[in-house]
């Protein structure tokens, strides 16, 4: 199979105006991926499926990823004028930058016919709140149907063009998206006979005022 760089270059040549980028995975898995902009997502997917050299006709897995907004510190070298009148000196400046959050839909593609893969395809939303629409790839790979519904349910990604976009795991009246990093689960830890770890922290909110000393409370007789 071609390398991802070659695929990216072919995609850029085939779809002028698209933004296809290579996302490098620095981990030991080294499973690099292709980031495609949402407006060309469907066309790129069809190309990957139908191209005779790729024939990625099987989408084995589709998953959602939540990337909350994060702060990055960048070190920039800027030229500061010398107050004494000499030549400007170069000074390192640390700039804090807020990277806005986004949601990702990740597709793992294989070719059964040509026996290669996976090619990892990513689509990214503009933010995590109001612009969370991505093109659905269910019309391209039928196997995405339930998994896109799951990503819609648990992450809140809206897949445009999905034939049946409903919640699949949670009930229809449910409003939250449980797999998002900022999801707050319902607090039903009022009865924890032997709490420890995270459960202890949650159960402690239900302790009567003044009941402290949780370390000693661990060994108390249970009702």
């Amino acid at each position: 199979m071609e390398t991802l760089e070659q695929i990216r270059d072919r995609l850029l040549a085939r779809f002028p105006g698209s933004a296809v980028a290579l996302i490098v995975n620095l981990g030991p898995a080294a499973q690099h991926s292709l980031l495609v902009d949402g407006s060309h997502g469907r066309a790129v997917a069809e190309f990957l499926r139908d191209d005779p050299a790729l024939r990625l006709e099987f989408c084995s897995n589709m998953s959602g990823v939540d990337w909350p907004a994060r702060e990055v510190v960048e070190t920039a070298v800027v030229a500061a004028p010398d107050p004494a009148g000499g030549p400007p000196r170069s000074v390192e400046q640390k700039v804090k930058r807020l990277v806005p959050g986004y949601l990702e839909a990740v597709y793992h593609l294989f070719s059964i016919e040509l026996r290669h893969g996976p090619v990892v395809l990513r689509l990214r939303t503009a933010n995590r709140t109001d612009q969370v629409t991505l093109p659905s790839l269910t019309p391209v790979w039928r196997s995405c149907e339930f998994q896109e519904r799951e990503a819609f349910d648990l992450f809140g990604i809206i897949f445009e063009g999905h034939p049946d976009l409903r919640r699949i795991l949670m009930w229809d009246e449910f409003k939250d998206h449980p797999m998002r990093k900022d999801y707050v689960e319902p607090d039903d830890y009022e009865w924890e006979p032997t709490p420890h770890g995270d459960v202890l922290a949650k159960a402690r909110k239900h302790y009567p005022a003044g009941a402290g000393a949780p370390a000693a409370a661990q060994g108390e007789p249970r009702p």
Partner: protein
Amino acid sequence: MSDPAAPPSPPSPPSPPTQAERDELRRHGILLTSLEELYNWGRSHSVWPLQFGLACCAIEMIAASMARFDIARFGSEVFRPSPRQADLLIVSGTVTKKMAPQVVRLWNQMPEPKYCIAMGACAISGGPFKQGYNVLKGIDRYIPVDLYIPGCPPRPEALLHGLMQLQEKIRAQTISGPEAPRHLQAGGAPECAVPDFGAHDLQPPQNPEVWRPPTIIRGGGA
């Protein structure tokens, strides 16, 4: 100080025969029993469970019903596919919040007298999945549970032991008086409220008529 002129006090009712006396009579071919005893004896040996499984505990429940463990020895082999014909609800597995209203509905559809076994850690408390956003932390929040069988999952022998304990419980029930089971009380058995699907959680998150969080007294020099 007794007055010799006073009429004699009415004789106290005869005390019921002891078990030893009954065994002695049974050896002579005389069976002494009471309606209550006969009724409970019959009920306790034909507890028909609902054919209903939720997770891996259900596999152990199925194993208990098969030849090796053979729940038929205790009269409970007739797993009914309809709640209308079942006496026992074995909640065998993780109850998700999406499934909980259906479990409560099945319980309501079962005719009295009915019993509920919470089988395994999940049905008791949520078990290893209790921190999941969609896991009910114990089915006893919505329906009255008669028996808890710990284990993850409990072995079939544990289920059989639980069933024997349930039979003990059935045999100990009276058919009249304030200790009588729900269906023999005036007014009949109340239905359990089926929770609604809310925007963030089930509404209500527990049925206060059935379950309230026990008060935990935590000492330790607070």
